[in-house]
């Protein structure tokens, strides 16, 4: 046992990080591929269709087929596009979407920290917000540089929407931070040992769910790519792998937001009903998966918002509600300080 620990300690830090990154990257990309299939299947079932079922058993090879299709499609650049930024934008989107996974802890760290996060940054949640805020550039620059009107409209909508809703989202999360007393994601989960924050922060959780959907530009807030009015929104002109990168980024953001909801409100890898014999990683994945399911459920159920109502809702309902939640939490914590 001691020898094994020594062996592990002998491994250089950068190598551990590298291997962890590789594993997380692999897992995340696979999860992305199957979350796409997951979404298509669930949507189909909710719409009384069988969904993709031609490629492999139950359509399980569909992601591979899609990937191959993406790869072999022609990569077009419109004449009116700004070539430099047009090519840069998908990478900004993807890198920020992937970078977030560097700080998301998936389970209780063991002795070697192997199943924890790649890096437990102290300002973890802020790091996530910083990266997602850069992610906006991917979308808005893509829309601008396409040199075409629909993408521009889409990206302007995206920017306005994401700024508006990010504010409420951050405010709803700050309530959790006040309760946990730390900005480290690991610490926030530890603070939920006894009670999940979804109970004291139910208003914050509702606001978080709504803003999270808006942040990731998903139905019913998918004004950014509203097919009926904007063709494809900011990625209208993109094709082939570059479109694929946006696609990956969108789904990764979905997964990120689900993971964050799990970590911040649903107790992370903490077990429910004392069922501690199930590993924390399974708990975490189950919770994140349930959130993802809810996401898709939302998409099949609700029609798209109108743009002015979206803004109204964001600024006149969500923002005051988030502020109220924050103030209430702060007051409660200030007057009845607990050690939890």
């Amino acid at each position, binding site marked *: 046992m001691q020898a094994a620990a020594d062996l592990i300690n002998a491994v250089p830090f950068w190598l551990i990080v590298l291997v962890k990154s590789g594993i997380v990257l692999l897992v995340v990309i696979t999860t992305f591929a199957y979350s796409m299939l997951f979404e298509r299947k669930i949507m189909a079932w*909710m719409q*009384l269709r*069988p969904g993709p079922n031609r490629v492999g058993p139950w359509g399980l090879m569909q992601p591979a087929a899609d990937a191959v299709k993406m790869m072999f499609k022609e990569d077009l650049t419109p004449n009116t596009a700004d070539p430099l930024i047009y090519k840069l934008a998908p990478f900004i989107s993807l890198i920020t979407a992937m970078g977030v996974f560097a700080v998301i802890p998936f389970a209780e760290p063991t002795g070697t920290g192997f199943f924890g996060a790649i890096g437990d940054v102290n300002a973890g949640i802020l790091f996530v917000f910083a990266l997602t805020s850069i992610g906006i550039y991917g979308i808005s620059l893509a829309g601008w540089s396409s040199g075409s009107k629909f993408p521009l409209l889409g990206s302007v909508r995206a920017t306005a929407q994401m700024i508006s809703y990010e504010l409420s989202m951050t405010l709803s999360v700050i309530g959790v931070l006040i309760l946990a007393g730390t900005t480290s994601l690991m610490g926030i989960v530890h603070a939920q040992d006894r009670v999940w924050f979804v109970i004291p922060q139910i208003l914050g959780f509702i606001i978080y769910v709504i803003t999270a959907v808006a942040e990731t530009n998903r139905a019913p807030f998918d004004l950014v790519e509203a097919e009926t009015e904007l063709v494809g929104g900011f990625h209208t002109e993109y094709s082939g792998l570059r479109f694929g990168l946006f696609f990956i980024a969108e789904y990764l953001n979905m997964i990120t937001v689900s993971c964050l909801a799990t970590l911040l409100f649903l107790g992370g890898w903490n077990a429910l009903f004392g069922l501690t014999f199930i590993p924390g990683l399974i708990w975490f994945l189950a919770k994140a998966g349930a959130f993802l399911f809810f996401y898709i*459920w939302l998409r099949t*159920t609700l029609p798209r918002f109108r743009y002015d109502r979206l803004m109204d*809702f964001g600024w006149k*309902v969500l923002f005051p509600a988030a502020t109220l939640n924050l103030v209430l939490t702060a007051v409660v914590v200030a007057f009845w300080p607990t050690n939890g």
Partner: protein
Amino acid sequence: MRKNLFNVGALFHGFRTTFSYFFYKKPTIEYPSVKKQHAPRFHGLHELRRYGDGKERCIGCELCAIACPANAITVIGAENTPEDRHSPGERYAAKYEIDELRCIFCGLCEEACPTDAIVLTPRFEMADYRRGAFVYAKDRLLVAPDEGVGQAPDERPNGIPSDLGMVSEKKSTVDVATGYDATARGKYLKEHRRGLAG
């Protein structure tokens, strides 16, 4: 806005609806592997019938070609001779072609035919890679000589095959090779094809 915003009940009703649909049996028929039974008088691909002695019913009268609203049928008649007798009457169809791409499957040819020679079967799967393959000549329209029946065409030994699988199994008229030969263009395509429609 405000009224709609707080109508949470409707929201949950919607969620319940989609969630219950999630468990419904899906009505989709997975077509190529599962095929649906057609209506008995479905209008599909044509065929030319024979009598019990193997003679063609078609007498080359061209009434079907005249009745056809889409001008899809071309009939060129010829005289029967004692040595070369195709049909019971004086004339027979030396050439009988139906362009299935023009055909609207209305069944007027069937009604116009005085000898019940041309009928529409329930077969509908005639997809092909070349347009030329859709011009069906006599070689693909005529039923096999041993499938003819006596006076009435509906009294064939096996009845009118309306079951799709059985039809395509019994009379595999999907003979692409001859389909190409039906027209000069098809012939050319057949000679120059590259790995298609084998």
